[in-house]
């Protein structure tokens, strides 16, 4: 998986889950990362919006199920 946003998004995940060695993959999800609960999703959304200067819509946030969803959204919103 390669995306210009991967590295910075990985930084956000590492910080929120306090796992400095976490390797971000598209398939990373609440199923594979037990600490990823609904509060974490809100924190991830807020941090991603702020870091990349974007807004996610209500539908987009509700549909997030894995890290790949963040990358797809960022591809579409950040040039």
């Amino acid at each position, binding site marked *: 998986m390669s995306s210009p946003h*991967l*590295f*910075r998004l990985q930084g956000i995940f590492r*910080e929120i889950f306090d796992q400095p060695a976490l390797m971000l993959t598209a398939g990373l999800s609440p199923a594979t990362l037990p600490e990823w609960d609904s*509060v974490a999703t*809100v*924190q991830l959304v*807020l941090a991603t919006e*702020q870091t990349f200067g974007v807004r996610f819509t209500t539908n987009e946030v509700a549909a997030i199920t894995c890290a790949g969803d963040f990358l797809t959204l960022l591809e579409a919103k950040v040039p």
Partner: protein
Amino acid sequence: MNAELLLALDDRALARVIAHLPAADLGAVLAEVVSRRTSLDLELVGTVLGRLPELAERERWLAVDSPWRGSLLGRWLLAQSWSGDHSRIPAAMELWSELVEQSGRYAADALLERAKVRREAGDVAGSVADLIACAQRQPGYALLSKAARLLDRLAAKGAAIPGRNIRIGIVSSSTVELTPPLLRLLAARDGLVAEIYGAPFGVYRQELMDPGSGLHAFKPDFIIVALHWRDAGLEPLGNAPDAADRIFGELQQLWAAAQRVTPCTILQHAFDFPPHESAGLLAAREIGGRAQVLAEVNLRLFRARMPGVVIVDCPRLAAQAGAETWSDDALWHVAKQHPAAPVLPLLLDRYVRLIAARVGLAKKVLVLDLDNTLWAGVVGEDGPHGIKVGPPTPIGEAHAALQRYALELKNRGVLLAVCSKNNDADSREPFRSTLGMVLKEDDFALFIANWEEKPANLRQIAQQLNLGTDSLVFVDDNPLERAKVRREMPEVAVVDLPADPAGYVGAIDRRGYFEALALSEEDLARNEAYKANASRYSLKAEAGDVEGFLRRLDMRMHHGPFNGAVHDRVVQLLNKTNQFNVTTRRHGPAEVAAFRANPAVWTQYFRLVDCFGDNGIIGLMLARPAEAADIWEIDTLLMSCRVLGRQAEEFMMATLLAAAKERGIARVRGRYLPTAKNGMVADLFSRLGFMEESRMADGAATYVWDVRGRVFPPVAFVRSAGA
């Protein structure tokens, strides 16, 4: 690749170019750009860091003698790369420390990064200190929440956070998950170690009313009732004429029910207003309109002045943030979070300041620099007629606005002090001869202009006013002076003034340093009292001998049990007196009301009048039965330091012992509980003739006075003057 062209791009555009470069070109581009870039942008940093693994000759660029050291951007990249490498942690630390000083608007980010490195290096206390310093720079939500999460992680591993312990329960109709970490960090920043209970969302009524709820089991010192407009349950139009009565009445019942179970202070949100209103202006204009009812409820909340209930002025905070920023519809639909994340620091800051005021940590002195702070220009060079203040210049108006704000603070009891690097004579001249000055020399409780270092002068100011250095707020346009004070005296609140003097008032006001819960007559008279004190001291010098001085003061003490007229001042003194206070027990308004109603508790206030005027209420005592009905324990004995050395404490003790005798009490016990600040009363009971009864390793001790066997010696220079 044309380097000049790349350097001409703005940071964001350059970040995009670098993000999409073929790996083969990366080395050439970064070689040209990084060490020559003069700006710093963290998005650019993140993009470059993301591509570093692909960089050829990476080791050379990231070496200790890297050419990248020459630019801010380069230093940040190096510091960040080295931070992940155990062998380079000392080098990273050094670089972060430079960046804390150099990186301007990113100073708070640099502090957070240094906190992370310190944590890696095992320096937990240093890490905590950096996080607190980071919070002091007032970062936005994103950065603050990162620092808050890190602080929680350190605390979970047992890191000690300095400060006073408090317990806060939060009940709310919205999600509370985002609040506790931020609130813990902001509390730590202001000297409070907060343990927080967040009630499950939406069940605030049950939590408050039910004595068996998790909230009451937690035994909070403070309960925050975080409601907003939706909780009022109002329609845009046509609400019942008594809607405001009903809403206000329900809140009163909730408070009373909660405080019956847990004696605590309640922080109640005043209602904000819906960001969208289908009825438009009609909601405000029509009787029963939603905006009108909410405004009416809020007015009642403010006017109620219930003991033990503090109102959080959410409508004002919402106006300050802007209604569109305060409410985030998407965040409400997605996460039931209100208000919006970006305004949480503003709201939680207000909680912390109100709690600080309640536990006696409110700031008391505004310390002001002169040149380019109170006026534009340097009086030593430009002269009293060359500096600018007031009309006609806009810059002069901006400085006059700061003076006016300071004067308003002074008029409600905040002390003002000057701390300036200047000749004393030069610095006083504008107050005498410059047109447009708002402040006068005698508005200041202290005026210090010399060439000493500012930290030394700040200590001097605190000492002369008999206050701790942590009650000072320092305002200085010079970033170097601010940095020096920050480094040497982290307990002093340092205001980050913006470059434009028009922003000075906003910068001081935003943090609510001087937030007070109630206004007392003493507040209004305080400056007069301090000035009268100066006269008293000159009399002392004249009189030469202490006895002559005390006699000439002609002191009369008015005293009596706590009553409604002195209630606010009693609560205020109980909660802010730190030094002359043997037990430092913080009783809130509700508890004081309970003492007043309890005939077994003996309370007494003391108001001292002398030949220079009324000192106001300067002392409080509270005694209650201990293990037997004929043994009293002194729960509280406190006095204002400004009447030290005037036999006031002797008079107070004589009064208490006389009352004990009258009530048939056999023994009176005094207790000293040491704190960081009350060393001056460590030997008070011995000095007054009490016998030591027990002593603990930490310095706590108890003393007794045998009421039947002994008589307190008469107090020569203070006369009783009735209530």
